[in-house]
C-alpha cells in the first residue's frame, strides 16, 4: 500500500466571503506498511488533510492516489466504498456509537464494506486490545482509554491497508497515551497496515518509522 498526494489545494470560504487556504501540498507520500507521524499545531490543516485522503472532503485541485487508485477522481459512492474497504479511521473523540456495544461498534466498522460482518474477528480484535471482558459494554460503560481501544479495534476490523489516526491520544491521560500508541503501532505492524497519525505534539513520536512536520509539506497561501 502506498499513499501519494500531488498538488493538493483546499481552501474554505470565510463568513466574510474571503478564501481561507488550508492545504497547499505539492507532494506527500507514505510507503507500504510505513508508520508515519505528522506533527502540526492546531489549525494547521491536519484533520482536513486526513479527510481529503479518506475521500470525505474533496480538494479544490490535485490528486490523491492510494495503491495507484486515484481517489480524487472517483464518484462519491465509489469513494465511500473505497473508504469502507481500504481505509481505517481513528478519531480524536473516539466517536463510538452510543447505542452499540463494544463488539457491535467493531462489527459496524465491517458492515459498510459489503462483506459479512465477522463476529469472531471482531471478538479477536477486542481481545487483542485487552477488552475481551468488555465485549457487550456500551461506550458509556467504558473508560476513556477503553473507548479509544475499541476505536482502534473498529478501525482495523475491515483489514484496511491504510490507517488514518487523528490525534488519537489527545483526550486520554498520559498512562493511556503510551498504551494506545503502542497498540496502534503493534496492530498495524502485525497486519502490515500503513499508518498515518497526525498530532500536535512530538512527545509520542519516538516509536514511529518516520516523523514529519506538516509545515514542511503544507504551505497554504505560500507561507513558510
Amino acid at each position: 500500500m502506498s499513499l501519494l498526494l500531488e498538488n493538493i489545494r483546499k481552501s474554505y470560504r470565510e463568513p466574510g466571503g474571503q478564501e481561507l487556504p488550508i492545504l497547499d501540498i505539492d507532494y506527500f507520500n507514505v510507503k507500504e506498511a510505513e508508520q508515519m507521524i505528522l506533527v502540526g499545531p492546531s489549525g494547521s490543516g491536519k484533520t482536513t488533510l486526513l479527510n481529503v485522503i479518506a475521500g470525505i472532503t474533496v480538494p479544490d485541485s490535485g490528486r490523491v492516489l492510494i495503491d495507484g487508485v486515484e481517489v480524487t477522481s472517483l464518484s462519491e459512492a465509489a469513494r465511500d466504498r473505497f473508504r469502507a474497504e481500504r481505509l481505517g479511521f481513528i478519531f480524536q473523540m473516539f466517536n463510538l456509537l452510543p447505542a452499540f456495544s463494544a463488539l457491535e461498534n467493531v462489527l459496524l466498522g465491517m458492515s459498510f464494506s459489503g462483506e459479512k460482518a465477522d463476529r469472531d474477528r471482531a471478538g479477536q480484535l477486542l481481545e487483542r486490545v485487552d477488552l475481551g471482558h468488555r465485549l457487550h459494554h456500551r461506550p458509556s460503560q467504558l473508560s476513556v482509554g477503553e473507548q479509544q481501544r475499541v476505536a482502534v479495534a473498529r478501525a482495523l476490523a475491515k483489514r484496511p491497508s491504510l490507517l488514518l489516526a487523528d490525534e488519537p491520544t489527545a483526550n486520554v491521560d498520559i498512562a493511556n497515551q503510551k498504551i494506545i500508541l503502542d497498540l496502534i503501532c503493534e496492530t498495524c505492524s502485525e497486519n502490515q497496515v500503513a499508518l498515518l497519525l497526525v498530532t500536535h505534539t512530538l512527545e509520542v513520536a519516538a516509536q514511529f518509522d518516520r516523523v514529519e512536520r506538516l509545515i514542511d509539506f503544507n504551505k497554504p497561501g505560500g507561507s513558510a
Partner: protein
Amino acid sequence: MSLLSIAYKSIRQRALASSLTALSVALGVALMVIVLVSYGIVDRMFSQRSIGYDLIVGPKGSELELVLNTVYRVRKASWKLPYQFYLDLRDDSRIAEAIPVALGDFTEEGGFPIVGTIPRYFVVEYAPGRKFQRKGKDLRRPFDAIIGSRVARQNQWEIGAKFTLVHGGAKSEHVHDEEFEVVGILKRTGTPNDRTVFVHLDGFFMIAGHEEDPEDIISRMIKFYPDPTDELRELMANIRREVEEESANQSKHEHDDHHHHCVPTWRKEVTAILLTVKGDMFGRVKRSIDLTRELKEGFQAQAVNPIVPMRDLMEIVVKNVSIVLGVMTIFIIIVAGVSIFVSIYNSMADRRKEIAIMRALGARRQTVFYIVLAESTLLCIGGGLVGVVLGHGLVFLAAPLVELQSGILINPFAFDIKELVLLPSLIVLASLVGFIPGLTAYWTDVAKTISD
C-alpha cells in the same frame, strides 16, 4: 450488521421517546381496528346474511321497531295481531312457512327475552343456509322451553332446569307463578337467538295475566279487519257467546283464578309472524312484494322485508357514525405519523454525528437514508402490531359488556378483511414520515459534523 438492526439499536437508544411514538401509532391503529371490527359486526348483524325470513308481519307502525322487536329483541313489543290472521297466512298457498311469535316477558334470572313460538320455529333456517342445532328435545308440552347458548352459559342452565318469568320487563317486580322447564339448548348461532328463551306458544298464553279482556280483543279484531267477511262476523259472534258462557262458569268457580286451561284460539294474539315465501329467488321477491302490498291495503298490518329498515338504519345512522369514526381514525393516524416525523426529525440533531461517523466508516448516503427510513418503518410497524393486538384485545374484553348492554352479539375473535390493508398503509406512512429526516441524514456534511 443489517440496516434493520442498526435502526433497531437507534430506536432502543431512545427507548422512551420511541415507545411514546410507537404508542401513538398503536392507539391510532387500535382505534381503526375497533372501528373496522365493529362496523363489520354491525353490518353482518343487520343485513340479509343473518336473517332467514322473507317477511315479518306485524301491526301497522314503525317498520324498524317491528324488526328490532322481532329479530333483535332489543325493544318491547306493544301492538298485537289476531291469531286468526296467522292461521289465514299459514294457509295461504304462496307461503312456505308462517311462524307466529309472541314477545313480552323476560327471565327472572339474567333478564333474557322470552319468545313464545311453535316448534316449527326451529325447523326454518334462521339465516340463509343455516339451521338450528340443539341438544335435548323439541317443544312438546306448554311449559317446555328451549334456550339459546348464551342463556345456558350465563345462567348455567342445563336440560331439566326450571325457571320463572318476569312480566313485561326485567325490571318489573311481577314474577309469574308458572314454572317452565328447559328441554333443549341451542348451539351458538351468533344471532340474537343465542340470548333468547323460547317457550311454547300455548304455554305463553296459559300464563296467568297474559289473557286479554275479550271485549278488547273483539274491538281490536274489528279494527284489524276493516272489511270483515261473513265467516269473521260469525267468529266474533261465537267469541261473544263463548265469553258469556265462560263468565257464567267462572262465577261458579270463583276461587279457581290460576287454573291452567287450554287457551281458545281467539284469545291468542301474537306480536309478529315470520314468513318465508314459496318459489325461486325471483318468485319469492315478487310474491313478497305482492304480499306486502296486499297486507298494507287490506288490514291493520304491515309486512316488512327485514333487510330494508335495517339497511336504512345502517345507511342513516351506523354508516354515518362509522364514517365519522373512520375520519377520526384517519386523523389519529395522521397525528401519529406527524408524531413519528417530529420524533425522528428532532432526534436527527442528536444523531447527525452518528450519521457522520457511519459515513466516515464507509456508509453511503443512501445507506444512512435507508437506516432512517428503516427506523420510521420499525416504529410504524411495531406500533401498528401493538395496535392490532390492543384493538382486538379491547374488542375481546368489550364483547361480553356490549352484549350485556345492547344485546348485540360480538365474536371476540372477529377479524375484518380490511385490516390486511393496515400493514401496507403503515409502510407507506413510515416512508412518508421518514423521508425528510432521511434526507437530512443523506445530506449530512461528514467533515464538518465530525469536527464540530
